[in-house]
């Protein structure tokens, strides 16, 4: 694999300045926030201007980057745009999820009600009518591959079809995978499934193909509230490294599993699993 990838900026200056204008304009910006989170994703990936600042116009050295994903639970509004983007980006079959959004409701007795109908794909327009209790607290939790630093899925794959890249990605080689499903059993976060078409293991890849072009993952680029953040930890100026080095409680899921996730959560309560 070539270590260096030249990051040609394919977007013409014209278009970029136009998009800048739209983004900077207050009306445009708020309109984008309200209506076009979904519309954005109908465009082809190249049209999306959400480049990773640290990668833009820079040669990307795979061994020097270390990517991290941060989910800010306090910002997630459960709109499901990320799930729609993901579904379109990968044509994910019905009933399977590379990413999903969970809704947590807590009552005054500390009972926790969790659900994720259709993985949150259609958002959460209605409250849960099946629950006849006073709700004290509610929040949404997006889930995706944790890109574990010690990934059990890689450990168990008998043929090395699931592997780790130097820049922190855990990927599946679909040309090698035999579809035994051992990785599906081993992933403590249940992010893996057997693709019903290719009959090989599939999971969230943090949009590796986009990242290597200097773009943000599809879900990150459509999130209207910035609840999903992605970037290179080795770049001190990136948002993710500032967050991770800064104050505030940041946690990972199922720490006791010893998987050392590369996916961090801001504002996750202990109820989140």
């Amino acid at each position, binding site marked *: 694999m070539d270590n260096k990838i030249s990051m040609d900026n394919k977007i013409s200056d014209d278009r970029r300045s136009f998009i800048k204008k739209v983004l900077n304009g207050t009306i445009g910006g708020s309109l984008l926030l309200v209506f076009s989170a979904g519309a954005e994703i109908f465009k082809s990936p190249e049209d999306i201007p959400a480049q990773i600042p640290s990668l833009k116009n820079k040669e990307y050295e795979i061994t020097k980057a270390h990517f991290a994903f941060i989910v800010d639970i306090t910002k997630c509004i459960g709109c499901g745009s990320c799930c729609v983007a993901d579904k379109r980006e990968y044509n994910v079959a019905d009933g399977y999820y590379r990413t999903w959004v969970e809704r947590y409701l807590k009552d005054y007795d500390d009972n926790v009600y969790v659900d994720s109908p259709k993985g949150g794909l259609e958002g959460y327009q209605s409250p849960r009518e099946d629950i006849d209790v006073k709700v004290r607290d509610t929040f949404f939790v997006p889930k995706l591959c944790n890109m574990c630093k010690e990934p059990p899925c890689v450990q168990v794959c008998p*043929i090395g079809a699931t592997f780790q890249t130097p820049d922190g990605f855990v990927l599946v080689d679909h040309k090698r995978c035999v579809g035994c499903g051992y990785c599906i059993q081993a992933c403590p976060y249940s992010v893996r499934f057997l693709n019903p078409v290719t009959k090989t293991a599939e999971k969230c890849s943090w949009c590796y193909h986009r990242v290597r072009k200097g773009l943000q993952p599809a879900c990150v680029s459509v999130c209207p509230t910035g609840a999903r953040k992605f970037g290179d930890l080795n770049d001190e100026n990136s948002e993710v490294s500032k967050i991770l080095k800064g104050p505030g409680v940041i946690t990972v899921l199922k720490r006791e*599993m010893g998987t050392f996730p590369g996916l961090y959560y801001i504002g996750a309560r202990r109820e989140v699993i």
Partner: protein
Amino acid sequence: MDAIQHISPYLISNYVFPNDIHVHWSMMIVLYPYITGLVDGAFIVAALYYVFGVEKLKPVARFSLIFALAFLCCATLPLLLHLGRPERNLNMMITPSPHSAMAGFGYIYGISMGVLVLIILFIYRPFLVEQRLKSKGVMEILYRLLTFDSTNVSEKSLNMDKKIIKFLVAIGIPIACVLHGYVGFIFGGVKANPTWSTPLMPVIFLFSACVSGMSAIIFAYIITKTFTKQKIDMDCLKILVNTLAGFFILAFCFEMLEVFSHTYLRSGYHHMVEGLLNGPLRDSFWKYQVLYFSVVPLFLLGFICLLPIKQWLYKFTAFITSFLLLLQVLFMRWNVIIGGQLMSKSARGYTEFHPEWFDKEGIVAVIIVMAIPFIILFVLGRIFPFWEKDSVN
């Protein structure tokens, strides 16, 4: 759901992770350890005779080996049916990943197969030599191959054979234990699944393997001898039943130890496991695996092992007990493999599993896969007559 809610406050919403709705390792993965278990148990019976010199087991020793071979031939079948891309199965041998427990399967399987075939060829050498001298053409070439192109059946060479057989079976024992302990480890090594992830798993698999294999031998022995109106060697049967009782007590103790230590510790995922055993697995675990197919056989075994009873009653009870124990092990496999997956990794709920009829991992496929070893056994029986009375010795 109501019952489950009472058990665990964590389950209030029965939330299953969206990808956990599907049970990935289904019926074929239940069959795989079941079949390898039968192989191991049968092999242990043979080993008791060939290595440990338990002379009374002579009548079933050769049958056990051929039985083991017939089932070993089919051990990969359920795995192949289960794979999403079966045509790539050899990748496991060509580019094995050193970190993966499963990567060793092909090698361990290959070695077991090689050793078992060699043992059988040496044991049958005098008979095969005789056949070779009688046959012509292609068959002669075949027999030449099977006899290592040697017609020497002098006492000296037969003694040599005996030593070789003893050696091969002796190394075959650890291989059989590795094969099945390893199958258990494949499950035990999945830390994300609290019902599997226990160091006891390989041990439980190993002992239950012995139980299923021995039960199968007893069952087949009684049934074939009864149908062909031949005499059942009571000494042999008694040794088999006693050994089976020993192995079964150990297997059952370990299975229960596993559950009770979870229950007593009440730590971590205990509530989920408890909810599983008392919820979706209530019938298949407590009622079938434990009560009908473990406690009942335990009493039956106690009855025939400890009390002086009439021969016909002994045979009849041994027959029933071995059948129940065959089911016990099948249920145990089901409860571990399917049951373990019914529990979502969300630790907040359970999914369901309904086997299909005509799927490639469906009920019909299971019946076919289980029938094939018997067909192979029948064919092998023509080439290698396995009951003692047919012996040329």
